């Protein structure tokens, strides 16, 4: 059965069983590497994509159940410029092995899109479902705080541009 998905601004039609979890379609049919298999149970967050603003576990949602635009890690950079979260991740040198970092970054993106200035407690709460076996939590939280500042500065710059 053919299924049409809108991923990172492009439309793709794939021929798969409609019950196929989105993760396998993204990885094996579209060749994306950002979302990864960690548990297949929606527990760890490695497979996270953002669907209409919501951090979604692509390992447990059937492709046919997806309604709306899907953003993956590959879709965060705009015009060749990394998303402020990605830049903060590099500046803070967050990853150890890096395997889970798709989940960390995509969950942080959904968190900051909803709440651009979270408290420490809100960061812990909002990131709770993103596990990291290398235990980079402390660095991830520092990078989120740095990204908050970057995003605010970018907005300020964009805002002053409008005023000017």
């Amino acid at each position, binding site marked *: 059965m053919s299924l049409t998905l809108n991923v990172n601004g492009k439309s793709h039609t794939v021929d798969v069983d409609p019950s196929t979890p989105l993760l396998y379609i993204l990885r094996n049919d579209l060749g994306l590497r950002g979302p990864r298999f960690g*548990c297949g149970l929606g*527990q760890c967050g*490695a497979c996270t994509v953002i669907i209409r603003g919501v951090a979604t576990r692509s390992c447990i949602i059937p492709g046919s159940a997806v309604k709306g635009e899907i953003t993956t890690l*590959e879709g965060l950079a705009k015009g060749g410029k990394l998303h402020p979260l990605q830049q903060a991740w590099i500046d803070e*040198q967050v*990853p150890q092995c*890096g395997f889970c970092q798709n989940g960390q970054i995509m969950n942080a993106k959904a968190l900051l899109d909803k709440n651009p200035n979270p408290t420490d407690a809100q960061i*812990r709460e909002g990131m709770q479902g993103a596990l990291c*076996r290398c235990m980079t939590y402390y660095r991830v*939280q520092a990078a989120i705080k740095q990204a908050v500042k970057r995003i605010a500065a970018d907005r300020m710059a964009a805002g002053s541009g409008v005023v000017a």
Partner: protein
Amino acid sequence: MTTVFTGIPKHVEDMLASLGGTPSRRNLLNSAGLLVVSFAGVGASPVARAADAAEPAGAGPYTDPDFHQLDSWIVIHEDSSATFYVGKTDCGQGTGTSFRQIMSDELDVAYDRTTCIMGSTDITVDQGGSGGSTAMERDSWPMRRAAAEARRVLVEMGSVRLDAPVSQLAVSAGVITVKGDPSRKVTYGELIGGRRFNVALSGANINAATGVAAVKPVQELKNVGLSPQRYDIPPKVDGSLEWAVDVRLPGMVHARNIKPPVAGARLAGFDESSVRGVPGFLKVVSKGNYLAVVCEREEQAIQAAARLKVNWEKPAKAPFPTSENLFNYIREATPTSSSRPIVVGNPEVAFAGAAKVIEADYDVPFQGHTAFSGAHATADPSNGQMTVYSNDMKSYGMRRGVAEFLGMPREKVRVVWMEGPQGFGRTAADDAGCEAAYLAKEIGRPVRIQWMRSEETAWDTKSPAFAVRMKGGLDGAGNLIALDYNARAADYNHVGYNEADTVLIAQLMGIRRAKPAEGSAATPSEMYAIPHRQMTTHVVSMPLVWETPLRTGNLRDPNGPQSTFASESFIDELAAAAKADPLEFRMQLLTAGTSEDGGFRRARSIAVLKAAAEAYGWERRPSPISRGTGELLTGRGMAYSFRGQTVVAEIAEVEVNRRTGHVWAKRLVCAHDCGLVINPQSLRHTVECAMLHSLSRALHEEVQFDSEKVTSVDWYSHPTLTHADAPEKIDVVLANGDPHPDRSDLAPYGAGEAACKPMLAAVANAIFDATGVRIRRIPLRAPRVLAALNAAKV
């Protein structure tokens, strides 16, 4: 004769292409191709291989890169950039960046003009892959010496080219100039770019590989001590890195295993008709008790594995005690082996004369590696060869194992190492490589296999469970005069290195060694001067020895965290019994000794304890602190240990919720002395994460099982640290306690694993300080802590 070439692996090509100014593969091949005649028969250097790249990639055979050839380690390109080929893999600590730092320093090229290729058996020398935090301590030495030798050779070539004696030459960033006349210059690229050195190295083995040149004094290493950002991080945050899980080959199919539902069960039969209707179904593959399904697509293989009707026969005897009964079992079992006791002084007499004797039992359960994604590999059987794409940290061991397991000559097998989820030693005993290769051979197409979460958590290798009995004697003045350490480890079938007769698929197929590889129960790693002591260790076996999900493997210092939990918790108990400050008590035991070793471990032990205490602001007083009346009780604990020559002291500050038993490690401090520091930022992050990994082991992790099977099968039933557990503050102090801290031959020692050892005890000691309650059983989950608080009426 023709040198047969394998082709540059895609990830290597990408890496080369990503370096600004480095020749593309095409250019590399062209430049090398000019010299193809002179390469013929030389064998394994990457350049020589590149010369033959016109042949189909993957053709084989895959001869071993010769570590006695300088060309196997370093290639200088025409633009004077350099590529380093090292036989190591990076488990997530950024070691490739550090190798580039130390090799570019010895070679005298700019750091950002270098790349590092790691761990693929056909193009990098066999340094064994990774393990034991030995990347810098052991393996950076031959790299360093090779780079120094390359510099020497280049300077001599420059001397001829510039017609000036070597003593009159200066080198900077790959450019050789005549001192006092900088217009006379020649670049490395002009001298040798794209061509071979053809220089032999000496040395009885790879660790001893050396040229004629001496390495530089530490003070002349310019990149060492700086913190260039890790080159592997940008492609990890933008989604562009190709990981081992991402390998896709033409004609590739997907496999999933089906594990026995009860450990030790016999595969009596299966009904293939139950899965023939699954779309894309290709085959059920089975031998002995090994069982797998192969389908065209990944989700189809998952579905078929779940749907296949299988008839398993339970074993006659229960394979395990239950996890609730584990420590009674370990204490009562007849050991499979016992060490000869290490005896100092006369412990028996000392205990008899002690003013106070205390005893305590400490228990650490099996803990899982629980890599973030299940074991995985893709095997390509094209051209009668076998290429395995794998994140195996010991790719060279996997190559041997796969070749022996399949009965293929080693030259027909190669392992291409690619990044994967950190497994803390799990991939030293990776199971997927042999499985993928076996299935690929059976199917005749490239096969990708990946273990599911429940399979990985239940069936990965386990860190051995320990039951330790401690006994200590104090004299009337509160001095520790006698100590007895007696440890039992459930570590009988300890696997690793992808041996063809111990990898799980081999065990399931009925292959048996005469005797399993026994692990061991470690003795404590400290420099305390205790006049009378005895240390004894034993290994015990679970009832089921083979084909067991409780087979053990190296989890990040295979037994240090367990033995240190016992020994450093007990030192705190003794300090409390002597009404002494825990830091003061340890300091007295360290300063009472005079013996020292070549790495100055005693001096450095004292230094890290001081540094940690200072960074934390340690208040000298006995534990426990007088309890407050609030819901949250706060306390601090310390512990110290060493691994190899690396010495660490750690302090944990905890908040214990007396109503729920929940423990939060609010603050962590580590003073860490690993000798020469290559990349301080990388080191700090590695230490941070190593501490948190052990914090996870302290607070959460335990493999549970009933008498038939492991019941810890996912992140709920084998919980791990989460964002909520992250400390508010972590301080990592990089100490240098060497008596001659500026020595020109200061050596680098291992980093990560040493930092894993003290944390379990530091947390338990902090809980005692906060509450006055001593808990001697890991993990310190809320229900256990609450029960202990309630029992003590806290």
